[in-house]
């Protein structure tokens, strides 16, 4: 079998590919390694928890409402560090550029990266550049890696029964807006990506209370993230539809395109599980940050193995991890 695009979609199909790609015997440097498939690795060095993560970024289009590939490539790595509970310190930047790419575009991308670094209080300290033949990639690929320091590393698998599930803001903004923009839908101009570095907000949350588990709902959206957290933690999650924040413009755009905002990427959001006693304090801390104004407690952790949404009309439905492209199934 050959790799196809479904293998990169972040769904269950990608999980199959990952089995091949993570078959390293040398996968742990002490602490948390590749085996935990978390947002980053934890390497204890002289009593300090160094967190390391890396991410390659391909975005079409390269510039979009609310951001560009540069901002995403910095925020992606900073956010992966942040949801491990780590203060981002330093990043690397490796660019692979297609022959013919405009230099002015690169300048814009670099400025945008710098802006994001500024917001997060981090720096790009080393890098690499390759130029490849026209046609061998679509414009530019940016890889960033980053290190951070975590006082108490937070995993995505630490949910416990009774935990409250908090999301730091509206869901689906990035995915829906970039789809609409890329596909040329004219759905009004309120649609914007949420791409932003979340460390400042996460830092406030970590100070306000205990956080059992945390994840950034990027590829595959909230649906993929929450299912992964539930599965890795061996718990079930009950969500309350009315509490799930989704911007009206995102909701309508999703309806018009037939795309579920819960199944598309976010680039400036955090999902976390917090013990009930700390939930209100953590929520208040998140809300005190500009990126967290729409934060909400959307559900709780119970025993079981599924993610279930209680709907506004009193029914229940499963939140399923996206499995490649949706195939119609309503009979």
């Amino acid at each position, binding site marked *: 079998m050959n790799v196809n695009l479904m293998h990169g979609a972040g769904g269950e199909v990608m999980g199959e590919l990952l089995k091949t790609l993570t078959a390293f015997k040398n996968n742990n440097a002490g602490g948390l390694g590749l085996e935990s498939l978390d947002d980053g690795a934890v390497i204890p060095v002289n009593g300090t928890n160094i967190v390391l993560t890396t991410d390659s970024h391909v975005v079409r289009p390269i510039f979009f409402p609310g951001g560009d590939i540069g901002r995403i490539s910095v925020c992606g790595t900073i956010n992966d560090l942040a949801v491990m509970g780590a203060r981002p310190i330093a990043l690397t930047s490796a660019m692979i550029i297609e022959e013919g790419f405009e230099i002015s575009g690169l300048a814009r991308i670099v400025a945008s990266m710098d802006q994001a670094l500024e917001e997060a209080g981090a720096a790009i300290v080393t890098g690499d550049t390759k130029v490849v033949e026209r046609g061998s990639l679509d414009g530019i690929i940016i890889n960033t890696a980053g290190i951070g320091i975590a006082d108490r590393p937070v995993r995505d698998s630490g949910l416990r029964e009774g935990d409250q599930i908090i999301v730091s803001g509206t869901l689906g903004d990035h995915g829906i807006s970039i789809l609409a923009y890329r*596909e*040329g*839908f*004219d*759905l*009004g101009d309120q649609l914007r990506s949420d791409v932003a570095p979340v460390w400042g907000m996460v830092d406030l949350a970590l100070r306000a209370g205990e956080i059992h588990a945390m994840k950034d709902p990027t590829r595959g959206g909230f649906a993929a993230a929450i299912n992964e957290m539930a599965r890795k933690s061996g718990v079930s999650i009950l969500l309350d539809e009315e509490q799930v924040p989704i911007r009206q413009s995102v909701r309508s755009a999703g*309806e*018009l*395109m*037939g*795309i579920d905002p819960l199944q598309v990427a976010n680039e400036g959001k955090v999902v976390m599980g917090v013990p009930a006693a700390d939930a209100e304090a953590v929520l208040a801390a998140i809300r005190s940050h500009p990126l967290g104004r729409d934060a909400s407690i959307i559900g709780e952790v119970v025993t079981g193995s*599924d993610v*279930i949404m209680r709907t506004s*009309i*009193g*029914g*229940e*439905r*499963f939140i*399923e991890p996206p*499995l490649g492209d*949706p*195939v*119609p*199934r*309503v*009979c």
Partner: protein
Amino acid sequence: MRRSGTIIIRGIVQGVGFRPFVYAAARSLGIHGSVTNLGSEVIIHAEGEKFDEFLRKIRIGPRLSGIDDFLVYPLEGVIADDFRILESGPGNLTGLIPPDVAICEHCIADISEKGGHYSRYWATSCVDCGPRYSIIRALPYDRIRTTMDLFPPCPICEGEYTNPLLRRHHAQTIACARCGPTLTLMDRDGNSLTDTDTIQRAAELLDAGKILAIRGIGGFHIACIESAAERLKSLLGRTEQPLAIMAEYDIAEEMTIIHPEDAEILRSPARPIVVLEKRDHSAHETISNLHTIGVMLPYTGLHHLLFSHLTSPLLVMTSANSPGDPMITEIDQAMSRLRGTVEYFLTHNREIMNRCDDSVVRDGLIIRLSRGMAPKRSRVDLGEKAILAVGPELNANATIYNDGICITSPHIGNIRNPPTLRYLEETVDRLRTLTGITPEIIACDAHPQFLSTRYAKNLAEELGADLIPVQHHRAHIAAATVEECIGIAIDGVGYGDDQTVWGGEIFAGKVPEYARVGHLEEVLMPGGDTATRHPERMLYGIIQRDEILDLLKARGWNDVALSALAHQVERRFNTTTTTSTGRVLDAASALLGLCRERTYDGEPAMRLEAAAAQGSPTDWEIIIHDSGGTATLLTTHLMEKALTEYLPYTSELPMVRRRGVADIAASFQHNLARGIAHLAVLAAEENGIMKAALSGGVCYNRMIRRTICSELSDHGITPIINTEYPLGDGCISYGQTIMAGRR
């Protein structure tokens, strides 16, 4: 001439009063010996002068029985000098889990008899009637293994149970007011309304327009009188959905056209809901805004007693659950879930072990296979390996096979709802424990995202069974016949071999090899499932004409939504193709302004059918493209024709338009059916197969089914229609079993 023998009878022999039947025959003919029940077989040791006559007599079996095998061997063992019913023993349990049976005439008479032992007792039953499956914990069927075990019979009931001369000899559910389960009437806060006659009080509340939850055989109903129907629907948030009614036969006959076949089904021991045509199509609109209405007759003592007190002629009766969710069986659950809807609760203390919704039948075809009809048992040889099939997703049920017998569970519902998926899992567990079967093969739908597929995968892993995904429409056809045939599978959605959405398929061949030789034209489904919920999107997916956009704009679509729809189709963004027949009917319904949003399963197509029932069809041109052995019916052409016919009416007065719409609706259905039939005829001639099996939910549409059948007959092709299993997705688990077993 034989004088003795050991007789083994296999088939539907449990819960039907087989042993007392044999006992009575033996006594009357002076036969000595014994009868015992080993799960799915009855074993008789018999000796006597009139042995042959005895054989003749018992070969017929009691009323509810069905005999597969009747074997006589030389007598084994020693015979006593009388005739005895022996204790049931364990044995092969695949024979039958007996379904529930409506109260019989004798028991109704017992209830109305003044001063009798069963006078006005709500749960009166006998060897011929009463609950079975819904109260069974384990097999063989005997009181101690049912939820009646908590009600030890009083001396009088015990006397009747043991008296071979009485109708209740060995009736496992025997009970009376002194010893049996009792009724309670409560308000929504759980305060019980003590009254001399609970049922009379409940009837008074109903007559006063109150909404009651009533615990029945297999779960709770919500009931009210006709004038409260509108209020009930708005409380349920289901303002458009037709509800069923319960009424005595004469009332039903006043309201609807009941053909003799319908009457027979209405009064059958299964006592299902029968979908009947209203005499006046626009009457009883608050109950059903279609030209049809679902009607059932009272089927328990409780129902009969309620009607004896009720002044209102009918009760609206709907299962107390959201559509697709499992029926509510427990009073605590009913009280917490139905608080906002129901004012009073009429409940009883007989535990419902196995939930069972009402069955539904239309034109003799099963729409929902459930109470009284399921567990459904069929004999078919599928080899040595035990098979479990878990069905599709929306109208799921499960089938289990072993040793020549398939058993299909009652209707389960839409397993995308978490409680319904749990119910499927429970049902599979129950089937496995009741029958003692561990599946070696697990069959599921080919749709990779169906939750039943995921469940099947996990279970197969757990049990080390082989997983066999079965294409949806082939399962439809395999459920209809195992003979070589042309298969016509017309429904809403099924995952195709080419990973697109099928639903208007013509096959040729024999299980499990069905070649796809024809289908409806591939049309666009803008936004995927969104196009099912909003059939106007589907309409534009079929014909991308400015007239459609103008029509939608005139109906209130805003510019952003319209341009998004047009853009989506142009870019093919999140737009798959489908050959679904249901979606084409939905689109026609949308075109004619009959249904703009689907609020319940099948609504657009049902509204189209209701409109068409008022109109008369004309023949339109039918175009079939033949591309490399696969014939395609151009549905866009039919839709264009409908559009041309419809546009002039948009400016007409409502009355004129309604008549025009009725004719277009009728013509559209008629010509779609002709087109489908032509595809089948082409396939039949090409392949030299002169039988055609019809399946899929679209076949419930009377006009479409009849048009297809008559076109087939005109070409010398024999139509085969499945009357044993639903035509809709309720047949899929059975079809999957056949496909997997014959693989």
